[in-house]
């Protein structure tokens, strides 16, 4: 019985550690969270989809086509003088 209480208490403590940590943050911590979240939103929801498409994933459906594209690129990029 005593063991059960201990475990329950530990679970409660882990939860409250995070809960009270998040709810009692200083204004500076809140600012940092805002900066970090805004940065991640810009990166993953603006930069990645609109400015950084994966060229091969976007233009080719399967690995064989991707390999063929790269093979062609590698061949055509040899200096024209050759």
């Amino acid at each position, binding site marked *: 019985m005593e063991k059960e209480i201990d475990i329950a208490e530990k679970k409660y403590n882990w939860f409250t550690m*995070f809960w009270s940590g998040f709810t009692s*943050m200083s204004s500076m911590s809140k600012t940092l969270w805002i*900066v*970090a979240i805004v*940065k991640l939103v810009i*990166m993953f929801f603006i930069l990645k989809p609109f400015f950084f498409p994966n060229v*091969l994933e976007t233009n080719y459906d399967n690995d064989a086509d991707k*390999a063929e594209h790269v093979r062609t690129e590698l061949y055509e990029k040899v*200096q024209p003088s050759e």
Partner: protein
Amino acid sequence: MDLLSASAVNWSRAQFALTASYHWLFVPLTIGLGLIMAIMESLYVKTGDEKWKNATKFWQKIFGINFAIGIATGIILEFQFGTNWSNYSWFVGDIFGAPLAIEGILAFFMEATFVSIMFFGWNRVSKKMHLASTWLVFVGASLSAFWILVANAWMQYPIGMEFNPESVRNEMVDFWAVAFSPVAYNKFLHTTFSCWAVGAAFVVAISGWYLLKKRHTDFAVKSMKIGSLVGLVAFVMLAVTGDGSAYHVAQKQPMKLAAMEGLYEGKEGAGLVAVGMLNPARKNYNDEVDPYIFKIELPKLLSLLGYRDINAFVPGIVDIVDGGYTLPDGTTSLSFQERKERGLKAIQALADYQVAKEEGRDADAANHEIILRENYAHFGYGYLETEEDMIPNIPLTFYSFHLMVMIGMYFILFFMVMLYFLYKKDMVSNRWLQYVALWSLPLAYLASQLGWVVAEVGRQPWTIQDILPVQAASSAISAQNVATTFILFAVLFTGLLIAEVTIMVKQIKKGPESEGLKA
């Protein structure tokens, strides 16, 4: 490079350099402060002295600011692989992907989990549990760096892979050879010690500022002692691992070593340039112009560092281009023209292999595959037009290397003086040393950045040494697109840097006894 008229490949290079440089402002402080705050908390747990606890909590706040602002800035580099460097991304296959995936899954989550316990866990978990979390934050950050550096080291010294002409990818055949290549572990140690060095210089500089302001004197002296000890160890170990780097560069990237030293004509018993100025009149690799305006050389040292033999022959740029000298494995080096011919053979064989396969000529395909494998070590030379294309930017590599070494030597002396005054004299009354401590901080960051300039500029034109130059690695995209995202990144990262410095300065001004970050 004239950026206004630059090609897509040069814009892509500039963008990668910009992003990596900004990212590298955050990383060293995370790892370096991680170690220092872990040492301080260990002292708190061992002695029970609350002053160590307060010191730990203060540096954890600074760590938190840096961590929050800097987190995930490196992911942008991975975005660029898929967009600007798609040929490279495909070509490297799982070799590059595996270390990065391990980094993301294992190290990053480990770091993130224990960061939250470290910040939220004071007085909520046991002292030992909290201390373990703080140490694991440091270990997690270091492991994270390890896997990134494994990927980078493979580009400098490709090993443990086999090229598959069917999939046009390098496939990993020996994970352990990739993960523990001599270049990788030396690079990891050298880079990690550079992070400790930046963290130490940071702690000593901020502590110096408190002493100058006559605030938090006891805290500042305590922090300075830990910072100076870590700093001295870090810079001495940087010299030791730097020696290891020079050895590996000499064996695997002789052109980089020649560029670092501005060595055009190779010689036996080559000296190491301690101080020198390159002659800008030397425009081409085979000019007759003296490459130096002046130089002070340490006799025989370059041969010793590079080949562990004071009389060893160190090839210069002309020797590497012209070939004909004996390599460490006893074979004779090929000239640029010979390597180019073999590179072109390999590229042609790759194309012919596929045609033969499609036409069902399996025997021909097998022959083309043999030709490809025989010449694969020179694959990238087929893309280079002239000899000059295989030579990196000499002045940038040379001055970056020498300035980095000079700053490193300065810091060894600096931390020795600091420790002497901290333990034998009165640090609090030595205002000149406090000023020196404060104003040395930019030098530590500069040296850290210069190290990457040497490593990355010095290996140009290669994304993968000898196998894939930048022009073949880049995507077929417009220069305008890359220029636009270059400007976006410059704005975003500058904004983040301003936010970091502003919040950090505010917190430093509040000092260690303020409430600050309760979390």
